[in-house]
């Protein structure tokens, strides 16, 4: 018979608020150390998901980010109710993340290059794109066009937001049309795909960057892996729909580790400097 001490518990070896287990290699990582390493596993290099705030700190120069449309919130166009009402879901997501919706947009500098920057947050209802995300991204693109400043969008999204129905689907067309105007005007657009970028977001603006970068190991694909494996009735191979898979098949330009992401974006933006600036070939 096991005797148990009724008073007090044995302290856990790895209390969850201090330690995180790497899902890839199983290593226990000290949270502070993990944060210092930009949420990349120090042992195997697994890239953890990054919230919008942390992503901004990573990419934008210190104190350079000025948020625009910060107070824009979604209405409930369809009166959508599943197990909870849509406004309740939004309120819960706002409380959880501290953001009004799944994207932060604004102006910033990246290595002293002024850009329009948009960063999505997967924690907010799976980063799904509804009216607010569509409108904010469209405004960001229009601002980039007006200022002739490069547009950088960091995608992290499960796709279109079901709770807004067909209106959410139309955001695909809306955002594509907006970045297409940049394309016509010769304003650079860099799309960064992070874990995960799937569905309607990948099937719209995120695939259309002049440069498309991805983070290592990020899940990137059109349809969810479950749908795909049900379609063919078998399990999918390891690495299917990962960033490296897309690189192999020619749909992303580079897979860039998080530590090098900022300088890599800055390099491309520097090379694509909008006309009239120095260093251009006189073509």
């Amino acid at each position, binding site marked *: 018979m096991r005797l148990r001490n009724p008073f007090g518990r044995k302290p856990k070896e790895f209390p969850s608020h201090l330690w995180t287990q790497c899902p890839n290699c199983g290593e226990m990582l000290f949270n502070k150390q993990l944060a210092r390493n930009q949420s990349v596993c120090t042992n195997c290099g697994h890239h953890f998901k990054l919230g919008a705030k942390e992503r901004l700190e990573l990419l934008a120069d210190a104190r350079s980010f000025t948020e625009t449309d910060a107070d824009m919130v979604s209405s409930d166009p369809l009166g959508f109710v599943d197990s909870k009402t849509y406004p309740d879901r939004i309120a819960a997501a706002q409380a959880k993340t501290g953001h009004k919706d799944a994207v932060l947009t604004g102006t910033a500098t990246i290595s002293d290059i002024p850009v329009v920057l948009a960063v999505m947050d997967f924690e907010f209802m799976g980063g799904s794109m509804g*009216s607010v995300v569509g409108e904010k991204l469209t405004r960001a693109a229009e601002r980039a066009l007006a200022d002739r400043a490069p547009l950088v969008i960091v995608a992290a999204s499960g796709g279109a937001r079901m709770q807004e129905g067909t209106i959410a689907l139309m955001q695909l067309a809306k955002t594509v049309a907006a970045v297409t105007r940049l394309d016509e005007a010769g304003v650079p657009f860099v799309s960064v795909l992070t874990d995960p970028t799937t569905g309607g977001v990948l099937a719209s603006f995120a695939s259309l960057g002049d440069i498309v970068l991805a983070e290592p190991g990020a899940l990137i694909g059109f349809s969810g892996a479950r749908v795909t494996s049900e379609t063919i009735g078998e399990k999918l191979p390891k690495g299917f729909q990962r960033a490296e898979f897309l690189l192999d098949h020619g749909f992303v330009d580079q897979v860039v580790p998080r530590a090098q992401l900022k300088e890599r974006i800055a390099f491309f933006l520097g090379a694509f400097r909008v006309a009239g600036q120095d260093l251009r070939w006189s073509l």
Partner: protein
Amino acid sequence: MGMLERIAGSRRAGPEGNGHLPVDAGLITDTAAYAGERPTAWQAVQTARNIGRPHALDVISRVFDRFQELHGDRGFRDDPAIVAGIAELGGRPVVVVGQQKGASTEENIERNFGMPYPEGYRKAIRCYRLAEKFHLPLVTLVDTPGAYPGPEAEERGQAEAIASSIQVMSRLATPIVVVVLGEGGSGGALALGVGDVVLALENAIYSVISPEGSAAILWRSAAEAERAAQAMKLAGPDLLETGVVDALIKEPAGGAHTDHDATAAAIKTALVAQLERLVRVPVADLLSLRYERFRSFGTVVEPRAGEVAAPPRPWWRRVLGR
């Protein structure tokens, strides 16, 4: 139909008119027409999926003359789930692209149930460019459960193909009329769905995800599809209300599957009237109107819109309390 009316006018009919059809000939542009007898969302889903419904080739053979199909994306293969070609509408050439479902199980297997692969969308893009190059109006027929979600499709870039298709349509310098025939399934449908005028058959549906898919995710049970269909507002009258479609084409009593000829005749009347109008609009205006049409989707609330944030006071002013 909004902004187009301001440029091209809406009615050219009447004895004093110039002989053209009224643009809303045979069209339902107001949900008031459905007072009380609106079919339920689930009925619409069933009707839109009816295997006997006129599919793209049924419509093409009845609406257009001398249809010549064009095959292949010039890169990989010919996707049978998308048919594309050049045909004549009322004696004038147009480019037609449509998603093709089958009318029997065998035909459905051959057509992959109307679910295109990336090469299908790339074939469509090729034909869009053809339309632009030779100044032919483009007519697209949407009827798909969605883009094919298999692993080969992922390998060949399904998302990129759809994104590119939307991109090309959004700035194609020629008039585009979209007709949703049956199922408008998500991004796979939108890849053919960016037009100056978007019409739908009365019982067509257009949704961001299939009712079954939505039910599986939100209710964790595919059996709740009926409730999901209701919640997603995917039926014709709902689409008219949200502005996703500009007008509905009336179907024969009992649904389009009961009379292909009558359905095709209604589609033809609508297409001719819309194209008559669109070809008069300068292409630059068409493009900006098309941008505005899709730009305007979405309802957002901005509590402090237009307010300019006061610039932060410098530290010395704060210290001085001024």
